[in-house]
């Protein structure tokens, strides 16, 4: 048998077809895989460009950068009124806290930031002591220092607190109250004692079924009626109680998820070595369950941080309310004041929440040891 032709050398490698290689094909694959998709991309790109340009034009090009009062901001065609922010931002942070006493909130901010950093950055040691400080000592210290009235410290009533200070106090109270309470409620919901289970389940479901506005409304209008005569804790404290109870119910559900993820063998093994219920929970189950639900806790904290803006509905001057009340200041009330204030507020809230959500994703990636595709 003879062969007409045998190839002895390798055939030259041909370039990939023009439709799948090269810059043009790559671009098409990325931006217009189908004609319809390309049209959609073009429309979206044009809209985005327009939106970015409009905001840039308003916030930078046409903006008023320095002015003593509203005069310049009221001019036709004026953009953002930044001097309004410049003259108000200290009030946004401290509220009506006396100016010469502002070092007190500053200490609170600093300590809070240091302690939180210690808790959140995985590499920093002494997590247990840090948590003990943050969840017990720090709230008491904050309350005492800010309120004053001892050692020659001037007393500053809670009515004078405000701005970002209140927003942060409310969110941190929420988290500080909700983690331990949430753990107890979650354990209660899974308890074998019917009375405890019923009470915890009832509390969680009722609180989760009503809006936060109603809980705050209840705290402001109904809780004072429950107090013994002569006891008046003040609006802020009542609102904080409301926020604490509200977030505890949500936290309980997050933690319950973590508890359910712990294999039954862990419980059985702890019982087999003779640990009591509380030791089993404290030493074996909770350390594992809490670790799993860290992203959930952070996500809860993000919505809690946003939800603190609702305290303005019952007349507490948190960040949102204090910015908004500045719109009516006779020196600054102009056509652009409101827009500028809302824009600044949105930036502040966004920066906080975005940072937290990134952190939550980072932790999730750290904890995620499963397969990914």
């Amino acid at each position, binding site marked *: 048998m003879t062969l007409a032709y045998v190839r002895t050398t390798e055939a030259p490698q041909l370039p990939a077809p023009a439709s799948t290689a090269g810059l043009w094909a790559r671009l098409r694959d990325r931006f217009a*895989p189908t004609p319809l998709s390309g049209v959609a991309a073009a429309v*979206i790109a044009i809209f985005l460009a327009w939106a970015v340009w409009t905001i840039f034009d308003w916030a930078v090009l046409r903006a008023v950068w320095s002015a003593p009062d509203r005069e310049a901001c009221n001019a036709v065609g004026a953009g953002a009124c930044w001097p309004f922010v410049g003259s108000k931002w200290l009030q946004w942070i401290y509220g009506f806290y006396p100016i010469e006493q502002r070092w007190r909130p500053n200490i609170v901010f600093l300590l809070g930031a240091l302690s939180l950093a210690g808790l959140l950055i995985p590499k920093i040691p002494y997590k247990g002591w840090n948590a003990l400080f943050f969840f017990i000592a720090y709230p008491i210290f904050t309350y005492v220092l800010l309120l004053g009235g001892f050692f020659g410290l001037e007393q500053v009533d809670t009515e004078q607190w405000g701005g970002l200070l209140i927003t942060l106090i409310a969110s941190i109270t929420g988290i500080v109250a909700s983690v331990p309470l949430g753990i107890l409620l979650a354990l209660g919901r899974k308890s074998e004692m019917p009375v405890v289970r019923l*009470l915890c389940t009832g509390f969680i479901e009722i609180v989760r079924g009503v809006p936060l506005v109603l809980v705050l409304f209840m705290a402001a209008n109904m809780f*004072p*009626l429950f107090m013994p005569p002569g006891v008046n804790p003040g609006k802020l404290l009542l609102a904080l109680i409301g926020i604490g109870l509200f977030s505890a119910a949500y936290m309980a559900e997050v933690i319950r998820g973590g508890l359910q993820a712990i294999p039954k063998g862990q419980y059985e093994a702890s019982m087999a070595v003779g640990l009591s219920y509380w030791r089993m929970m404290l030493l074996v189950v909770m350390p594992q369950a809490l670790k799993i639900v860290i992203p959930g806790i952070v996500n809860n904290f993000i919505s809690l941080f946003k939800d603190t803006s609702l305290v303005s509905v019952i007349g507490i001057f948190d960040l949102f309310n204090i910015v908004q009340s500045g719109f009516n200041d006779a020196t600054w009330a102009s056509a652009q004041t409101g827009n500028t204030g809302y824009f600044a507020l949105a930036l502040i809230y966004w920066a906080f929440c975005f940072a937290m959500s990134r952190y939550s994703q980072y932790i999730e990636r750290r904890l995620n040891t499963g397969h990914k595709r």
Partner: protein
Amino acid sequence: MTNLDPRATSAPPQAGGSTSWLYDPKLRGIVSQIVVVVLLAWGLYEVIDNTQDNLKKLNQNFGFGFLTQAAGFDLSSSLVEYSSSSTYGRAIVAGLLNTILVATLGIFFATILGFVVGVMRLSKNKVVAGAATLYIELLRNVPLLLQIFMWYALVLKPLPGVKEAYSFFDSIFISKKGILMPHPNFGPGAWLALLALAAAFLGTWMFRKHARKRQEKTGQITPVWLISIPIILLSPFLGLALAGWPLTFDYPELKGFNFANGMTMVPEMVALLIALVFYSATFIAETVRGGIQAISHGQSEASSALGISRGYALRLVVIPQAMRVIIPPLASQYLNLTKNSSLAIAIGFPDLMYAGGTVNNQSGKAIEVVFILMVVYLSLSLLTAAFMNWFNSRMKLVER
């Protein structure tokens, strides 16, 4: 054989045993439950006692009789007949209807937007996916309350006053007072329109069943929705025509400084609705994306190996499976949206919370009002949850 059941430790110790009754879990459980109940009863007693003292001091008493008194305040928008001489009870009902209206419309639009954005975020097209990501990351991280006010400023400011209202065909007016539309009045025989609509829905359902059977038999796809949607839309008009057109409209007209007649959609509601839809849609989009990503890649790869286009693969293979993952979190998003609609109180749209708050301000019946609002919101939550549970069990994978 000794008892290997771990619960055996809860059996009472035998005489001379080493464990004391102090460590009997059963006894401990009973004692701690009694302690809890006693503590709770004591707390409850204190609260009731204090409340009675406080109410006596305020010259008030507990009771729901105030619901039949005249309210004396107006609501800017109501689905039922309501004026300032109506009762407190009616004010709360009007508020509840407004809450249901906003929640229903909000859920409807947020679901559509959320699904579109969620699918967009997984698009191969970088611009489309990027725009969806940008939208989600921007709006999800700003408080809803702030967004409501921003939309309110955006919606209300550019609108003209009543005298310069934009008018469309002299029947729809848009001004600072809101969107005014002609109010339809149905005469006798208008029920035929409803009947026709019901018949159209029934027909569509049967047609869909038939089409599915045909597809399973022959593989041919019938464009069910292309045919039935026009029929559904046209059917009420057909019914009306059969009844001899018993439909008249009250057109809004300018009287003095305000409009008379017609239906109004107040700007507060527009702002609230837009904010609710755009905010909730970010969460729904994330839910949808999570659901789609939870479906094994093999499913979409197998679909494209069979030559099914990406759109069809998504619609026929991936999303039906993803729905099972999506529905439970979607239900809680719906609950959140309903609860978030209570933020209406901040911009003064008369929803349930606003009506309740105003009733409380006028009557001072804080406990009763909170009780009513709680019961109503809880029932709304339970209803939504029950509906979604039913839907979920329908969509569940049928296993052997």
